[in-house]
């Protein structure tokens, strides 16, 4: 008999390619997003922003707005005494601008009216007068010694505890400095056979979640409580920030979970919620607020733009000797998650490679631009673009194949990262080289590379190119803020069904479906017997939310542990009922039975009934995940929960006359640990790759003097169906030793190397390199011209 070639055992539910359990609600229009909700008596909120910035506000006249029929309340700084501030790094953003407007997103007033149109009209009736102030809008300008200070009180600006170690107080708008040091790059530099270096730029990119930010908020005066239905993907982060701003304890602020129409790292900061809450408090009525698409661009966060100076050295055989990088982050005026992004990006600069000398200096710079923050990838796509470009340049200089040089350097089990973390096999599956080999194979690398660069197109005016890039992603964040933890309850109901109480926020990644598969697997139940409990921040344990690729790993682990705990409890009760040894009792196919004695079986309902009415205790499993990360210390020594890996190969065709780049094919070989649901994992991978294509070629929020020039869908191009290339996904499933059934996060790593791979393919096609993203047709033509010029 032939051996099973598949190393993974077969499960009935786990690993099954089943559709989303909640899919029908979306295709029929029955799913209610926060922005779909309305409640009786509801008012509508609109915000008035400062249209000039930076500026001194010399007058705010809301009298006309207040008098407009239908307007129920108008709030300005004057109505919020002792204005609290918020921020995920610097606590610098106040709800209302009082005297100074730093950005065009600073809120001057908030209006509640009986309908959107009235609220809008009222906003337009507000008269604000300004005096212009000088601004600093580019990284270069803001870094200058004589630059106008975005926060003149920089020296005393409050900072969240974890960031204090890296805060600088005496360098003007440069406010953080995070350093990574491994070995000695200066000493190593002369040893390198080849040194390549360049300056890379990455752009401000908009998340462009299809659902804009929005919320319905109700303040109940009788109980002094706030309830909200928000588009957030991080309900606990939202209520924490909201409670802080409203000066309420968190147990008086409840977020009811509703599906979020996309997140991508953009739905973590509070946006319109606090205004709705204050207006609700003022009027005694529920208040709804929804951002317009324009507000999405300037009032919510965007991906943090990076300037990256990077140098990389390699020995003749391709072994990387050193990487030296300076990262400059334009955080806008408030530095949302950007400081955390800078830490994370720094740690990932080395790539999943053995580089003995690493030096990174990352600095966050305040500018008068709109606020930047976190974005799917959290700094990894930016640094991967620079590093993988340089690795290709080094390979070229050394006449090495790009696949070869990556394989030569890729981490092996036991590798030591630049933060000193040892990737020991008992805690990490390190499969960097596996992803490289798989990507090379799935893409037909050798044959395709030989084919590439032959002229194509009807008139021979097109060139093909192929490029490869590898990246890694640290799961669960850089552990600067402490240990990642998750708790879940798995409850057996008297009718034999099971309800899962977890804090996982479904932002489209299908986590609820996957969790139900995990529970079904653990309990031997059909998936249909599992329901995901309706969630609110009151009813579920505290959680970081859908971020840092952690939900499957951390919450999934807690849910699995909870399910196993329940199983043990059920087995215990059944053993007592059957007068059997618990060791001999099994739980499968929806029954509890004595192994080898099929007659001695009980339905789960009977067991639960007995547990409750006979023994006086409902069987509820409790499961926990305790992340084994070590918070980063001042020397950047610390540990992340684990790493994910992906290698991608892009094939492009470049039109030499128009500069158009068409991606023909994207191959993604990604280590996912274990596909709890391959349909869902594949969807994440495909979506991430196409979003990476947008980052590489299409998308840029254009800011001029602090104004966003293209805040409309017709001037900001996200990938369309016709832009999507052939997508090839290869799921590598080397079980993670810690993740539930071996699963790891998949949602960010899938776009981390995409832009780098596309950039390398373009460079291969045109023989010169575009070092700033997005690689627009205009930049391609300029690069071609400059190549011809010398």
């Amino acid at each position: 008999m032939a051996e099973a070639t598949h190393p993974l055992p077969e499960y009935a539910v786990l690993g099954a390619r089943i559709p989303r359990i909640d899919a029908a609600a979306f295709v029929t229009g029955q799913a209610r997003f926060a922005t779909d909700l309305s409640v009786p008596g509801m008012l509508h909120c609109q915000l008035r922003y400062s249209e000039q910035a930076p500026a001194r506000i010399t007058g705010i006249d809301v009298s006309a707005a207040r008098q407009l029929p239908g307007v129920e309340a108008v709030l300005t700084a004057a109505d919020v005494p002792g204005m609290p501030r918020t921020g995920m790094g610097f606590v610098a953003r106040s709800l209302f601008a009082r005297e100074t407007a730093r950005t065009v997103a600073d809120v001057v007033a908030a209006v509640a009216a009986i309908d959107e149109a009235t609220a809008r009209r009222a906003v337009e009736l507000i008269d604000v007068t300004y005096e212009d102030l000088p601004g600093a809008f580019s990284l270069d300008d803001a870094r200058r010694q004589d630059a106008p200070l975005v926060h003149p009180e920089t020296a005393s600006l409050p900072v969240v505890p974890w960031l204090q170690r890296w805060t600088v107080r005496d360098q003007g708008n440069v406010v953080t400095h995070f350093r990574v040091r491994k070995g000695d790059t200066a000493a190593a530099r002369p040893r390198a056979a080849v040194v390549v270096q360049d300056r890379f730029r990455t752009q401000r990119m908009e998340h462009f979640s299809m659902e804009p930010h929005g919320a319905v908020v109700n303040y109940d005066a009788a109980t002094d409580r706030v309830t909200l239905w928000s588009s957030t993907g991080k309900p606990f982060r939202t209520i924490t920030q909201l409670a802080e701003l409203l000066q309420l304890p968190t147990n008086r602020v409840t977020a009811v979970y509703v599906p979020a129409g996309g997140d991508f790292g953009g739905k973590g900061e509070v946006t319109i919620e606090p205004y709705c809450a204050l207006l609700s408090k003022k009027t005694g009525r529920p208040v709804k607020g929804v951002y317009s698409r324009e507000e999405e661009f300037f009032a919510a966060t965007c991906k943090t733009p990076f300037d990256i100076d990077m140098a990389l050295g390699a020995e003749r055989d391709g072994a990387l000797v050193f990487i030296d990088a300076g990262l400059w982050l334009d955080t806008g005026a408030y530095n949302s998650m950007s400081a955390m992004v800078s830490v994370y990006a720094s740690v990932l600069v080395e790539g999943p490679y053995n580089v003995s000398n690493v030096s990174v200096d990352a600095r966050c710079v305040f500018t008068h631009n709109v606020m930047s923050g976190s974005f799917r990838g959290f700094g990894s796509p930016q640094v991967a673009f620079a590093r993988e470009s340089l690795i290709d340049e080094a390979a070229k200089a050394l006449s090495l194949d790009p696949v070869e040089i990556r394989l030569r350097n890729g981490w092996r089990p036991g590798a030591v990262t630049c933060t000193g973390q040892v990737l020991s096999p008992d805690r990490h599956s390190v499969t960097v080289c596996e992803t490289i080999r798989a990507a090379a194979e799935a893409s037909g690398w050798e044959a395709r590379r030989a084919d590439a660069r032959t002229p194509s197109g009807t008139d021979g005016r097109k060139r093909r190119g192929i490029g490869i890039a590898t990246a890694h992603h640290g799961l669960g964040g850089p552990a600067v803020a402490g240990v990642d933890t998750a708790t879940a309850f798995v409850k057996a109901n008297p009718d034999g069904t099971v309800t899962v109480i977890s804090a996982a926020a479904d932002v489209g990644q299908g986590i609820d479906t996957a969790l139900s598969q995990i529970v079904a697997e653990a309990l031997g139940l059909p998936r249909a017997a599992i329901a995901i409990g309706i969630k609110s921040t009151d009813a579920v344990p505290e959680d970081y939310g859908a971020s840092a690729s952690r939900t499957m790993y951390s919450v999934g682990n807690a849910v699995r542990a909870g399910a196993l705990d329940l199983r043990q409890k059920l087995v215990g009760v059944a053993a007592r009922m059957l007068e059997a040894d618990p060791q001999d009792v099994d739980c499968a196919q929806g029954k509890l039975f004595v192994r080898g004695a099929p007659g001695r079986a009980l339905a789960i309902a009977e067991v639960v009934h007995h547990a409750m009415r006979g023994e006086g205790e409902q069987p509820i499993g409790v499961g926990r995940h305790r992340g084994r990360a070590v918070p980063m210390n001042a020397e950047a020594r610390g540990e992340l929960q684990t790493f994910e890996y992906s290698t991608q190969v892009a094939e492009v065709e470049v039109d030499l006359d128009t500069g158009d780049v068409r991606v023909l094919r994207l191959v993604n070989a990604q280590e996912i640990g274990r596909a709890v649901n391959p349909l869902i994992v594949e969807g994440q991978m495909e979506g991430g790759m196409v979003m990476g294509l947008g980052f590489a070629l299409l998308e840029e929020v254009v800011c001029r003097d602090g104004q966003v020039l293209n805040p409309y869908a017709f001037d900001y191009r996200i990938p369309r169906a016709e832009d999507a290339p052939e997508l090839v996904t290869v799921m590598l499933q080397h079980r993670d030793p810690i993740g539930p059934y071996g699963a790891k996060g998949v949602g960010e790593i899938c776009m981390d190397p995409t832009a780098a791979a596309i950039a390398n393919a373009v460079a291969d096609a045109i023989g010169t390199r575009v070092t700033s993203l997005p690689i627009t047709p205009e930049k391609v033509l300029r690069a071609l011209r400059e190549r011809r010029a010398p």
Partner: protein
Amino acid sequence: MLQPFRLHDPATVADASNLLADLGEEARAYAGGTELLLAMKQGLLHYRHLVNIKPLGLSGIRFDEETRRLRIGATTTHRAVEHSAVVAARAPMLASMERHLANVRVRAVGTVGGNLCFAEPHSDVATVLLLHEATATLGSARGRRVVGIAELLRDAYTTCLHPDELLLDIEVPELPPNAGAAYQKAAFLERPSVGVGVALLPAADGSTVAEARVAVGCLGPVPVRVGEAERALAGAPLRGRAFERALDAALDAVGRACEPVDDLYGSAGYKRQLGVALMRRAAVAARDHAAPARGGGISATD
């Protein structure tokens, strides 16, 4: 968000014209509304009255065998043009341009007349009609007049229409059967960055260009015909090095003629380069259609 307005449903062109005259600046003709409602929602335009011109019976497509002209009513939707067998037969370049304009929903609602009358500088319709030497019939309670596309489009967002005038229809002369025509556009953002059309009308013997037309759109406030480029191509043989030489001269002329500005669509220099590149492609495609290796007949590419 739309602010309130009143809607008028006149029964005749004269009534509509009178209404527009009486209401003056506060009123505007409303067809599909894809531009108008958008601009009003964005607060760029304010009208207290909209005059619905869809019930005026101005939509429809007809080919007049005698004049060899295609008549397209002003309120004909892009979709109707796109799906019209008559247009496909008589003005294939127009049909193929329509297939690539905006998206299916805008095409289902937006009208050809609305496109022209809004005079948005990034119009494919205007460039292609200019190339076709189409004419526009304007009408009011005071009478009718016929103008060319170049006369209709005065400036960005500005037409020669009097406040009480409506565009009634456009007439598109069919190109001669042995002509070759092609329209090339580049669109990175929603609307085209550059659109270039070339028509080559061969001489009777079919070996040289009797008349060349070159229209460039999106690179200035209104699409333009590039006379110098047309003259460079006129008289050139359709094949061989001589065509290439004439084309090079025409490309130079196009490069000189267009005066783009830096904007979100790109820098002036880039757009000029793109215009020249598209011109080359359009010209070569037009040539290939005008003088096919075998057979003959009009065709178009995009």
